[in-house]
């Protein structure tokens, strides 16, 4: 939020005042910075050890032909692994499926999450706690557990969905949800949305809380309709929160693994990039080739980050209310 100061008389006076404020703030900012480092330092070091080291190791390994069960055949082959991966239809198919899941889940979750955030924001005080808990339940469930729950619900032998919803056109006793791409990806996406919408709605709720209620009230007094207020007042004021929510969820969705692993294990064309990396390095024990896939996956995630920050001008500090 910007501080509203009385307009200074002359440009010079404004300059001096600004400089003084800056000097004052930088003392405080420095102290804050130091405290920040004290608090975050240990975590930062741990993060370096558990993320930077594996990333460097994977990058190094990706330059070798290296199979865990044939350690003697290890050989340096430069970027050949990347060549194999990037010219393979399997990689591009998995890439496409991953992008599809990311785009659909983020879009649907944004709308649903915003609606839920509005409900939580507007709910009367006595209901608020109960409502937030109820909405958060799916997010509190371990992904593997929720994936199994969805799998068993839709499974043709043990599931109840087919019998409960057989009045819906297209659904019958004989529908095997995990046998073809369309229905399998539908269940995977639905479970992902069910599971992570609470996360996005929490981030949006924080953004909603930052919108000054005076602005809303002023607009209402001026005769703005609900839709106008939402479009002109609420949304512009929580743009930073929305972009942060989208970015975090997009990064998360792009790395989807558990749901696909449990429900189809990649059959019916539902292989995603994380599963491909897992299958290559852990399943086939092809450390070199698998590392190349992991590095490419990492680069894709970095790409999403840079794209979001540069293209959409996501201001991470803005979400803290500093802009």
């Amino acid at each position: 939020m910007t501080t509203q100061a009385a307009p200074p008389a002359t440009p010079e006076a404004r300059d001096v005042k600004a400089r003084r404020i800056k000097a004052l703030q930088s003392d405080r900012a420095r102290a804050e910075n130091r405290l920040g480092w004290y608090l975050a330092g240990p975590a930062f070091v741990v993060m370096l050890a558990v993320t930077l080291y594996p990333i460097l190791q994977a990058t190094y390994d990706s330059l070798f032909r290296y199979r865990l069960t044939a350690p003697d055949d290890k050989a340096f082959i430069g970027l050949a692994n990347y060549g194999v991966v990037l010219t393979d239809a399997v990689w591009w198919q998995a890439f496409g499926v991953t992008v599809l899941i990311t785009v659909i889940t983020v879009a649907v979750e944004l709308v649903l999450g915003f609606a839920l955030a509005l409900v939580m924001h507007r709910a009367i005080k006595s209901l608020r706690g109960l409502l937030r808990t109820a909405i958060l339940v799916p997010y509190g469930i371990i992904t593997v557990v929720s994936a199994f729950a969805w799998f068993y619900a839709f499974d043709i032998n043990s599931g109840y969905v087919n019998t409960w919803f057989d009045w819906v056109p297209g659904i019958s006793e004989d529908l095997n949800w995990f046998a073809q791409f369309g229905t399998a990806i539908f269940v995977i996406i639905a479970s992902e949305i069910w599971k992570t919408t609470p996360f996005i709605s929490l981030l949006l709720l924080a953004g909603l809380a930052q919108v000054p209620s005076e602005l809303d009230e002023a607009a209402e007094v001026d005769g703005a309709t609900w839709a106008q207020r939402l479009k002109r007042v609420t949304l512009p004021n929580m743009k930073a929160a929305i972009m942060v929510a989208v970015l975090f969820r997009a990064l998360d969705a792009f790395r989807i693994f558990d749901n696909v692993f449990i429900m189809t294990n990649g059959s019916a064309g539902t292989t995603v990039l994380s599963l491909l990396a897992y299958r290559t390095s852990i399943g086939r024990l092809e450390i070199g080739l698998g590392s190349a896939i992991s590095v490419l996956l990492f680069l894709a995630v970095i790409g999403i980050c840079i794209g979001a920050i540069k293209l959409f001008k996501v201001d991470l500090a803005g979400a803290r209310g500093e802009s």
Partner: protein
Amino acid sequence: MRRRTRALVMVAAVGLLVPLAACAAESGPPLLTWYINPDDGGQAEIAKRCTDDAGGEYRIEVSVLPRDAASQREQLARRLAAKDSSIDLMSLDPPFIPELAEPGFLAPIPDDVAERVSQDVVQGALDGATWGDKLVTVPFWANTQLLWYRKSVAQAAGLDPATAPVTWQQIMEASASQDKYLSVQGTKAESLTVWINALVESAGGQILENPEAPADELQLGLDSDAGRAAAEIIGTIGRDNLAGPALPTEDENASMTIFQGDRGSFMVNWPFVWPATKAGVEDGAIEQSVLDDIGWALYPQVDEAQESRPPYGGINLGVGAYSRYVDQAFAAAECIVQPENQTFYFVENGNPPSNTTSYDAPEVLEAFPMADVIRQSLEQAAPRPQTPYYNEVSSGLQETWHPPSSVSPEVTPQESTAFITAVLHGDQLL
């Protein structure tokens, strides 16, 4: 402040002493860790019995591996590649044995031990325990699939599998004529490879012509009459909906559920279905009449002139090459596979012995009236291709032979040969 320092010292002292105390408790006979596949407690009981019998020479402690064979292999291979000395004994699925034997992850079996543990063992189990003409694991229990059928359905269709071997063609026609479903494993998993291998072998072919060759010299035998016969059967079952809509995701348990249901007719499956169905009857989940209606016979033939080659599975015992107690581990392995322990394991957990003498025990015939058929099936059984690259071959088959309805004799054998070859050469991802 001083109080806090003292508390810190206390915490540090406890932190140091507790592990030391644990070390002190370790003294005594060497503790062997046996990594087991999950079962109904049979292996843990055998471990206890052998610890008691050892008279202080060793103690065995079991540690449970993940549920499916592929994940068990992943965990063991990664640990062994890191030279994990805590792996003394391990329960291994036969197809993955060459992969662990080739880089020397398994301790070599002394000749005298090899001779003792090979006695009276069915041929299929010996083949599965061997790599490069040497026994590399100790045969423990051996599994095979039978043809299970509903007597009422077979009778109505005019088929009697108990008296003469039946062919796939016959059971496909019989179940279609009665408007029932065949129970086979069409899910994209190891069980699909088991099915393909049994069909190809039963038709007189082989998935790999030279399984012991290095990756870039492996020759596939799928693009042959046998491969096409297998593709014809799987494709027809898929396209003509002979196994019902569940087929593309049907595993062994799903097969059993369908077989026990109203539309069950014929099923190929492991013997665990017998104790599982009996337990279902005891729990009241399944009618006694269903159990009475179940018959069994040898695995169906592809060609009526040729004996079938049923699937072979089971578990062998490997000793870790980096174990500190290799001699004790081999002694323990010999104890574990004694015929009486195999009999116990069969009766209690439903896992058939690899030792032929175990089948003669009276309690075996009582619990498994089909024990003789199982023994005969094991003698006829064909192992899956034994190659260090088994995972590539198996996953490659699953990639190209799934879903079953997409399989055709003109395209699939050729396509999978090209695909698996490219993967083995490192030119393609899996």
